[in-house]
């Protein structure tokens, strides 16, 4: 079981209100990702759930029991930190066994669980090494191993892949997703990387300045963003926003068109290509459109346009409409 419920949770540091008040329900077995820009309060929210920070007010319930004032160890949660936070003076075996030792588990059971975790995480050959003798990816696996042996109610991940290089990050991302599928335990994952959020989450929680902007499945957020912030934050490159006469034609204050929903060739928007990036699989171009401004376009495959070319564009997908307050119009 790993249902977590936050009711009116607030956190202030002196006069700074990092979390002004949050209500959130995380169901058992869900993979929930907290995403948002730097300083939006996502790590603080995770630390409040972990018990590493005290709430200013509000309640945190874990499996129906009030855990607001429980110390971290009594909450039945396990956490994987960005810096791995391994114990450098202990071997991998002792690192993984540490929470079991603290729980007073007998040695035979400790050994059994450590061996099992090591097998799952491909660490069997490294059990007698120290963290300093491991690569970044292996260290992260040890940190995950230390979390899974406890069989917690939920796993908390605080930007666990940020310290890894790009190639390793993709691999570890998949490993964590597979782990979730096999363990079926609740996972809360904090990241500022929306690709991680989109690919791993059952449910994404988009945070901005300590407030929840929207909660939903990845494609729900992509297709139906509730406001300009979510529309701009989810999707890469970011959604194009157009105001003025062009928006008025659609009875909106602002319209949003995703770069991948614009076709090149014929259309009502005409402009000059500024920057063009050709990746083979995709082409990214910036076009300065007359009367609208700079529009980002993402084309599949090779778009044969270059700097200085005059081209025409047309919206070729959903046009998102927003009112003057930035909220989406039906």
């Amino acid at each position, binding site marked *: 079981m790993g249902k977590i419920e936050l009711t009116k949770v607030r956190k202030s540091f002196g006069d700074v209100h990092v979390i002004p008040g949050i209500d959130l329900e995380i169901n058992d077995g869900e993979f929930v990702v907290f995403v948002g820009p730097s300083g939006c309060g996502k790590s603080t929210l995770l630390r409040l759930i*972990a018990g590493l920070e005290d709430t200013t007010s509000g309640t945190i319930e874990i499996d129906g029991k009030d855990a607001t004032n429980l110390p971290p160890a009594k909450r039945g949660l396990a956490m994987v930190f960005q810096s791995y936070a391994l114990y450098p003076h202990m071997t991998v075996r002792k690192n993984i066994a540490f929470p079991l030792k603290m729980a007073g588990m007998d040695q035979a059971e400790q050994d059994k669980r450590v061996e099992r975790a090591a097998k799952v995480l491909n660490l069997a050959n490294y059990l007698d090494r120290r963290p300093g003798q491991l690569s970044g990816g292996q260290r992260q696996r040890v940190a995950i191993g230390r979390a899974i042996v406890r069989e917690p109610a939920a796993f908390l991940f605080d930007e666990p892949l940020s310290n890894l290089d790009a190639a390793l990050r993709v691999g570890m991302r998949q490993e964590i997703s597979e782990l979730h599928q096999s363990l079926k335990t609740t996972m809360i994952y904090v990241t500022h990387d929306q690709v991680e959020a989109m690919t791993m989450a059952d449910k994404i929680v988009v945070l901005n300045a300590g407030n929840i902007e929207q909660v939903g499945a990845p494609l729900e957020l992509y297709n139906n963003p509730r406001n300009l912030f979510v529309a701009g934050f989810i999707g890469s490159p970011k959604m194009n926003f157009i105001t003025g006469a062009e928006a008025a034609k659609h009875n909106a204050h602002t319209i949003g068109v995703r770069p991948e929903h614009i076709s090149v060739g014929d259309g009502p928007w005409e402009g000059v290509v500024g920057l063009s990036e050709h990746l083979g699989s995709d082409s990214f171009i910036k076009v300065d459109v007359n009367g609208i401004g700079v529009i980002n376009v993402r084309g599949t495959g090779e778009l044969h346009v270059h700097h200085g070319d005059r081209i025409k564009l047309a919206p070729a997908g959903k046009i998102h409409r927003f009112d003057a307050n930035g909220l989406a119009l039906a």
Partner: protein
Amino acid sequence: MARAVTPRRKLITTIAAWAVALIIFFPVLWMILTSFKTEASAVANPPEFLSADWTLENYAEVWARSDYPRFFWNSVVISVGSTLLGLLVAVPSAWAMAFVPGKKTKDLLMWMLSTKMMPAVAVMIPLYLLFQRLGLIDTKIGLVFALMLMNLPIIIWMLYTYFKEIPGEILEASRMDGASLWGEIVHVLTPMALPGIASTMLLNIILAWNEAFWTIVLTTTKAAPLSAFIASFSAPQGLFYAKLSAASAMAIMPILILGWFSQKQLVRGLTFGAVK
């Protein structure tokens, strides 16, 4: 920009370092040489750097005239005891200051250190009277407490510096893993800070070993350590420089040997945190 180390610069710095080292070491060298001279040669004018007739007589006489093993044992108990007791108090204090600092933590640290600037003689009378009332005069336990209190600011400062280097996330991880505060300090913090704790221990043993003011003021015979042993050779009948030197050499030799073998650890300890 880093300056290039040319052979000439290296030569100059090497000569300068040797010169400074010799100036600092010279009194110790002079003392050791004097301890092997006759009393007449020790007070000769002009001074004799090398004596005409070397002798071991001073050591033999000092050994015969006093109970060196008892003074030595008292020094060991007092210096090691005060350091261990100091660590027992300082580890939790430094932990609190490093990991759960308050608004005034820095001020508190500065205040603690400032007590080291106070002349010891300023608190001599109250401390002496306090020791007298408590029956602690000329007891090893009394000196252990007194020297622990004298060196506590330095022990806390040094440990605080080491603890600050330990990432807070590792301690948080241990808390998530179910470690109690005691478990966190014993299983995670202490083993990680062990090199720092060892340096702090060594330095404080040396400081306590060399302490002369309180050890002489607060002892008479029973608990007197080696500092009092040296002082006992400056007799009212006159100064016997050769014997005084032999006694001094015997008093500093154990700590000199300890310092020599642990110099790497000591240097690391004293410069830790100074360069990042």
